[in-house]
């Protein structure tokens, strides 16, 4: 089986489990039933994907003449596109609504600046042919669990949580401090779903770090415990943008500085594009 389909299966299974584990949490009494349901749905998904793979096998092979099955096909054999997982990026503009985030000066609020950055980055990525899903497009209150739900349903190849702060300088890149669980573990508790993607998140963070260095934006790297980052079942990085101080020898720039914002968003878009190349080459 081509390796790309194996990854598609993994993503489906992980998605199903993330959803079921979340459903399972508030309703402990029905845990057995839900886990059973999960196994059945995983089996169905697996069966369906295997069926699709079997149907596609002749089309993807250029070698000659495997005789067709004499059994009548139960459904008309509609031509299907090859099952390639889509490269989707989830942009999470943090805070919103009653949660204003940091006060970055009168009247600048974190929730507004990260929304503007998210919209800007989304259009930049879309222009480069990258599918983007945003957790919010307007100023509204969103619980961390809703953000994680959006990210985990999208089976995203990268999840970027955008924050802004008045302290520090440059861009702060944070990955989850959860311990990495081996890729073999399939059942991920909702609160710590990120533990299955830590290694990839660190690689994504390193990709963004390189792009920022190229754009001459100082970066600090760190690991922390933060919601909804810990619940994202995708390679995830929290990007916190601080003003540029003169201390690092760089030209000082405020958070509201349009050219500084453009530099950061450009670098982020470049890093995600590079991540897509790496992602395609992954086994």
């Amino acid at each position, binding site marked *: 089986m081509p390796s790309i389909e194996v990854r598609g299966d993994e993503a489906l299974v992980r998605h199903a489990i993330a959803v079921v584990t979340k459903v399972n949490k508030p309703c402990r009494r029905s845990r057995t039933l839900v886990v059973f349901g999960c196994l059945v749905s995983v089996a169905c998904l697996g069966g369906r994907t295997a069926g699709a793979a079997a149907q596609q096998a002749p089309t993807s092979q250029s070698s000659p003449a495997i005789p067709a099955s004499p059994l009548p096909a139960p459904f008309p054999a509609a031509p299907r596109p090859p099952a390639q997982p889509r490269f989707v990026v989830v942009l999470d503009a943090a805070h919103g609504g009653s949660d204003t985030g940091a006060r970055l000066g009168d009247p600048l609020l974190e929730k507004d600046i990260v929304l503007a950055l998210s919209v800007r980055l989304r259009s930049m990525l879309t222009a480069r042919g990258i599918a983007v899903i945003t957790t919010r497009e307007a100023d509204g209150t969103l619980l961390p669990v809703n953000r994680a739900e959006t990210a985990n349903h999208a089976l995203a190849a990268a999840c970027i949580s955008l924050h802004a702060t008045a302290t520090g300088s440059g861009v*702060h890149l944070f990955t989850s401090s959860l311990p990495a669980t081996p890729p073999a573990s399939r059942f991920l508790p909702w609160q710590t779903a990120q533990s299955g993607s830590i290694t990839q998140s660190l690689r994504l963070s390193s990709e963004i770090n390189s792009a920022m260095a190229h754009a001459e934006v100082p970066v600090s790297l760190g690991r922390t415990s933060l919601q909804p980052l810990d619940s994202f079942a995708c390679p995830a990085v929290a990007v916190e943008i601080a003003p540029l101080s003169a201390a690092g020898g760089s030209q000082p720039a405020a958070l509201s500085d349009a050219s500084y914002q453009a530099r950061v968003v450009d670098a982020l878009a470049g890093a995600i594009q590079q991540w897509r190349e790496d992602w395609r080459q992954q086994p």
Partner: protein
Amino acid sequence: MIPRYQKIIFWILLGAAILMSIVLIRLRERAHDRLQTAADKMPLNAPPIAPAETVTMLVANDADGSLSPVDQQIALPEEPGARARILLQRLLAGYAEPHSTHHVAASTGVEEVFLMPLARQKEGQMAVVNLSGAFVEGHPSGIETETMTLLSIIGTLHTNLPQITQVRFVVDGQPRETLAGHADLTRVYLAEDKSVEVRR
């Protein structure tokens, strides 16, 4: 007709009762005065019985996202919980000074530190740090600044009191979701865990 000797006894007893009442009232006033004087002479702060000792603070720096060890001389009490509280109060008081490298609100910061043995382990203690509501309300909001405050507290506790291996945070005695909108305060932090860190 009351006999004369009974009248004399009555008057003598009445005089004795009045005299004893006066003596008792006077004695009570004296005792009150003595207690009052003793209370006035009581020192407000415990005298520094222990000599000043060298402690290591892990000081956060917002400019480069680093934590650096800084040695200080301070007198600390013997009791470990009180030692931990004074250490942290000194650390956070330093952050509230004008030329601090990591700005936080000027307030008591840490109300109390409770040390308790770990349930399933022979060694090690958990420190429950009770932060003051005023400190948390005035803390700047941001992933880096909040993470560094927590790491600085955890690192300073573990460096000076190595028996502290786990740290939990409460605010005014109550559990709280985050420090100032970001760093998680609901979890138990492992003092030796290097996965929570900030580096340039």
